[in-house]
């Protein structure tokens, strides 16, 4: 509208309707609506005839204006304007009509869809229906839907061909996938079969080995782990071992990839063995060697089980001994650098430089005795003895356990360690004590015999060792095996005995008895000598008859010196007195006799002193001088070699 300015307000109003005198009521309603909307914003109250009239008067009637405006514009615009108006009106009507139709179709479609969907009562579709549709009150769900190909297809044959092709394609595809699936399944079966075969082979080797182990006597038990590859475990430890070692004595039998058996934990630690060495002044003079292996025909697993058991046993020996060393420090036993060092009791002044060294080394070490040293036999014996003793201790544990237990009291029993080292030290100490004593006694007897004084000597190294066979034969204890009864002897104190008859006694009836008793513990704490004197010497010593005639000594040297003194006393006071009768008097407690010698007019006293030292008997005639001035006039000594003049003859030659 180029004519009207852009700023001027344009009021669109409907084409003036033909005026009618009577407006039918159905035409009045839209008029009233329009009125209400145009003026007064929806309310009709301020609109009265008077206000309308006022508005007309005030010139609000634009109709005329427009008409005027139309008329004022130049005439040549009027037809275009008119046409334009017509055009606009027609297009407006068309637009309106098409919009109405569009709305109609859309609402129809919406109604149709909503009706179709109304079968589903859960949906709330009230808002989707139009008002007109709702007023028809079509029942819900009364429309159904069925899809089918459009009835009027273009070409029947084309359609059929297409269908056939599709079917063929589908069949091919189906066949192809079936073949693939069958192939895959056969592959699976083959794989499964081969795997099963392998498993069967593995299992049969495993079970064969398990059966062979069980037949050899090893106890098997079920292992608690549910793992497939180790259902069994072999208990290779000793059943009576002490706590820690008993727990270690179990090895699960694991299956490896070929079905053979691996012993799990045994491989982790190297097998150990006990090594005993003897050393003199620090130099090795003897070593024990490896214990014997099993038969070579055994299966590898059994060999490793045996190795494991042996190694555990040796470790147990070492462990028990190292616990024992703590109590045996007083006997010269030490644990240094994990080596147990034992001082061997020797003959000179008690302690020699000989030591026993015991340690537990891995089996593969080459340091085990192949060097053929001089004292290998002793080291080997010591090692074997220790093993025997621990075995014995195991059996004794079972024996003690099977006895009727004592009634319960408040006292708790302390469990002492097995007597391995104690027995070893006791044996070595006892042998040393007895041997040193016996050596001296033999020497003494030889000396006295060579002096023409007959003495008899009987010695026993250990009283119960002598009677061992008889003891086993006569034993009535059926509940303890013979070997255990034998070894029980070694846990008890040892006692050896020696009897020496007095030289002054005829028929050798008076005997000195020396009992050697060895026990590691109270009361002797080692070796102890008990000397029992015969009655005849008691009177010499001025001991009253009812006092005990026993004396205890703790070392060989003391016994030796005491024996020397007793024998010399016996020789002087008893023998010489017997020989010389009234002529002999003894003045003191020393082994000295005064012999009255009828030399010349007034007799003089000659003192004969008898002295025994270190296996040598010596007699001397000394001055009658009790103050100790021992200038000897005559002297003679015997040493144990033969062909000497008898004692009595020598004395006769001096004294007449």
């Amino acid at each position, binding site marked *: 509208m180029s004519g009207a300015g852009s700023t001027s307000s344009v009021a669109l109003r409907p084409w003036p309707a033909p005026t009618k005198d009577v407006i039918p009521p159905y035409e009045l309603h839209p008029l009233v609506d329009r009125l209400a909307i145009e003026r007064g914003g929806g309310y009709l109250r301020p609109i009265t005839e008077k206000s309308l009239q006022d508005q007309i008067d005030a010139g609000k009637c634009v109709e005329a204006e427009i008409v005027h405006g139309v008329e004022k514009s130049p005439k040549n615009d009027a037809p275009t304007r008119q046409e334009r108006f017509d055009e606009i009106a027609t297009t407006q009507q068309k637009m309106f009509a098409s919009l109405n139709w569009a709305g109609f179709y859309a609402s129809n479609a919406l109604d149709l869809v909503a009706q179709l969907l109304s079968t589903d009562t859960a949906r709330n579709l009230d808002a989707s229906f139009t008002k007109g549709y709702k007023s028809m009150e079509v029942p819900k769900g009364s429309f159904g839907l069925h899809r089918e190909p459009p009835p009027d297809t273009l070409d029947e044959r084309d359609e059929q061909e297409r269908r056939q092709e599709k079917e063929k394609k589908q069949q091919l595809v189906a066949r192809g996938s079936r073949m693939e699936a069958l192939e895959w399944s056969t592959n699976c079966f083959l794989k499964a079969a081969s795997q099963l075969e392998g498993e069967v082979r593995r299992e049969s080797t495993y079970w064969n080995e398990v059966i062979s182990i069980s037949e050899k006597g090893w106890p098997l038990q079920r292992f608690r782990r549910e793992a497939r590859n180790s259902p069994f475990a072999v208990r290779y430890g000793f059943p009576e071992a002490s706590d820690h070692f008993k727990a270690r004595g179990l090895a699960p039998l694991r299956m490896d990839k070929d079905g053979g058996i691996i012993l799990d934990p045994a491989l982790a630690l190297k097998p150990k063995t006990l090594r005993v060495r003897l050393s003199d002044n620090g130099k090795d003079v003897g070593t024990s060697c490896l214990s014997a292996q099993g038969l070579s025909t055994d299966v590898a697993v059994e060999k490793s089980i045996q190795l494991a058991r042996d190694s555990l046993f040796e470790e147990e020996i070492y462990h028990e001994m190292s616990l024992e060393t703590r109590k045996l420090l007083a006997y010269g036993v030490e644990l240094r650098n994990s080596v147990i060092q034992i001082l061997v009791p020797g003959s000179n002044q008690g302690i020699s430089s000989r030591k026993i060294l015991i340690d537990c080394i891995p089996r593969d070490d080459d340091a085990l005795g192949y060097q053929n040293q001089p004292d290998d036999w002793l080291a080997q014996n010591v090692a074997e003895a220790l093993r025997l003793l621990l075995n014995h201790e195991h059996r004794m544990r079972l024996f003690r356990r099977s006895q009727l*237990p004592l*009634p*319960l*009291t*408040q006292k708790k029993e302390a469990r002492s360690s097995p007597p391995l080292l104690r027995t070893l030290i006791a044996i070595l100490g006892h042998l040393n004590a007895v041997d040193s004593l016996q050596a001296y006694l033999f020497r003494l007897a030889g000396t006295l015999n060579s002096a023409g004084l007959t003495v008899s000597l009987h010695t026993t190294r250990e009283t119960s060792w002598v009677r061992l066979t008889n003891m086993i034969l006569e034993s*009535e*204890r059926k*509940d303890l095996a013979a070997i255990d009864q034998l070894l029980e002897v070694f846990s008890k104190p040892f006692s050896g005995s020696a009897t020496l008859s007095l030289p002054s006694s005829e028929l050798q009836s008076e005997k000195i008895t020396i009992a050697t008793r060895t026990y590691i513990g109270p009361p002797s704490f080692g070796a102890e000598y008990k000397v029992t004197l015969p009655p005849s010497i008691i009177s010499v010593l001025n001991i009253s008859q009812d006092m005990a005639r026993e004396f205890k000594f703790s070392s060989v040297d003391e016994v030796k010196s005491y024996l020397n003194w007793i024998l010399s006393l016996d020789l002087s006071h008893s023998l010489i007195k017997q020989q010389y009768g009234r002529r002999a008097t003894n003045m003191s407690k020393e082994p000295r006799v005064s012999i009255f010698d009828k030399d010349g007019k007034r007799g003089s006293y000659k003192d004969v002193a008898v002295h025994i030292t270190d296996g040598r008997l010596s007699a001397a005639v000394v001055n009658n001088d009790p103050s100790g001035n021992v200038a000897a006039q005559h002297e003679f000594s015997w040493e144990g070699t033969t062909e000497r003049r008898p004692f009595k003859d020598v004395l006769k030659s001096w004294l007449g």
Partner: protein
Amino acid sequence: MHELLLYGQVPLSRHEQVLKVLAGVAAMQPRRILQRHIIYKPDREPEEAGLNRPRGGTQTIAVKQTKQVGSKDLNYCQLIQQLSEDEFGNPSKGPPVHGGGAGAEAKWTLVFNDTPDTGDRGVLTRLSQNTDIISGDPHAYMVAARHQFVSEYYIEGHRFVHENVVILLHRVLHEPGVRSLATAPKDDLPAFSSLQPLDSSGGYILETKIRVQDLNHPAVLEAGVSELKRFQTQMKGCVELSEPERLALDTRVKYKPQTT
């Protein structure tokens, strides 16, 4: 000393199995036990109960009530002889009463078991005194001690020791036949095959026992009772151990009224 006891029953069909289970539990082989039990009764007849209490009124002046002492019970006691298999059926080498040398366990034992105590400890408690007889004639001793022979029976079974518990799986055998005229135990033992079980089904009894020196120490007693109960739960499922009725083990001599 006192004994804490629990008993269980094992039918003959399960004897082997239970023996193996017990060997596993105790970790030792069963030790065969054969015993002969000889029962003795005191010569003195028990008095009628209640006789020594005064009945009725008295005409004495009221004096201090002296305590009425109930008459002491008389109990049966037993001599137990340990036997071995080869002693059955052999003519005995002399009267079977001389004790041999010092064996590990004495051949003859004099056993006195008191009536079990009342009380609800869960286990049966009784005083028991065992005296080993080393030498001499036990029967002559019992006769001199004014006891008379009642009867004898045999026990065969196996014994295990598990820590402090003594387990005895045994059954009673006797010689069938009339023996009421015997006044002394037999010198010759009968053949083992002639003995028959007292319980004709051949069932066994499992006796578990802990010996306690003294009931006065509650800690020791508790330890013993709890150990026995632990063993009971350990054997659950295999053998049911329970506390038997106390009066079933009553060893008192009952009063028999004289029938004129």
